[in-house]
């Protein structure tokens, strides 16, 4: 069960609208490596995870990603609030405006709508954890790219916080992978699927002997 808390994880207080910047940040709301993709990925993968540490980590990080999605939405909202038609055209977001006005819609910077095809839930803990490690690095690179085009200190502050969380999550997923492989047959981690072939865990292998 999820309960909404009426606050942001980290404050977003932007004084100056900047629709061009909002457009590139949109990729972290509904692009391939977005907070939305991260959240759906982790909260879907967790059901069949074979160890309690993995279930806990995916639940807690998947939930934190929802807080990040909310922060990114707040950034885009504040960067595009109260714009005139003239400003919208001058900033080159008239192509977004025609479909969504100033509503917040999950798509990439280039306008591609969000799709579950961006993510995978493979039913194999080793495979899924590698996807999760990659996802955190891809999101980190996206934030690095956003920072290249961002000179507003109000926006930078929030984006840097989000970037840092990708690094911490990467660390946690790395520990998850180690915890998992420590419990598997070290001669060949890939001989079995730890979510499907139960006998691949060391304690199970002993029992079978």
């Amino acid at each position: 069960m999820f309960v909404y808390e009426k606050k942001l994880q980290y404050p977003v207080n932007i004084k100056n609208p900047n629709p061009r910047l909002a457009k590139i940040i949109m990729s972290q709301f509904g692009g391939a490596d977005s907070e939305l993709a991260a959240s759906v990925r982790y909260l879907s993968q967790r059901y069949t995870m074979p160890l309690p540490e993995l279930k806990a980590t995916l639940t807690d990080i998947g939930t934190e990603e929802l807080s990040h999605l909310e922060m990114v939405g707040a950034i885009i909202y504040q960067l595009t609030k109260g714009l005139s038609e003239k400003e919208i055209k001058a900033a080159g977001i008239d192509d977004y405006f025609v479909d969504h006005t100033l509503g917040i819609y999950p798509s990439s910077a280039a306008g591609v709508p969000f799709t579950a095809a961006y993510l995978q839930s493979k039913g194999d803990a080793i495979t899924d954890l590698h996807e999760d490690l990659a996802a955190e690095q891809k999101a980190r690179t996206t934030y690095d790219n956003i920072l290249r085009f961002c000179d507003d200190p109000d926006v930078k502050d929030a984006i840097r916080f989000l970037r840092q969380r990708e690094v911490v999550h990467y660390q946690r997923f790395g520990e998850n992978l180690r915890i998992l492989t420590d419990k598997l047959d070290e001669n060949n981690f890939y001989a079995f699927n730890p979510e499907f072939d139960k006998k691949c865990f060391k304690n199970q292998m002993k029992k079978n002997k």
Partner: protein
Amino acid sequence: MTERDILMKQLSSYQFLVHDLKLYLDTHPNDKATIEKVNEYTAKLVPLRDKYEKLYGPLTTFDAEKNRWSWVNAPWPWENEEVD
């Protein structure tokens, strides 16, 4: 920053500390030093949360039983009040 922003920042700082340490505990559930830190920061967080809700309205819909209007009407987190 308004008084409300300052209190929110204090509350969020402790909440974030506790959250980040709990993520660590997901992979190190028996780490005593971390558990002690979580308890220490949670003890600081709880009164700040109570103070915030008393002054500025409920943070969850469950806390809003006696103050439905405040849940609806108090500013939503994505609004920047300094600009409005």
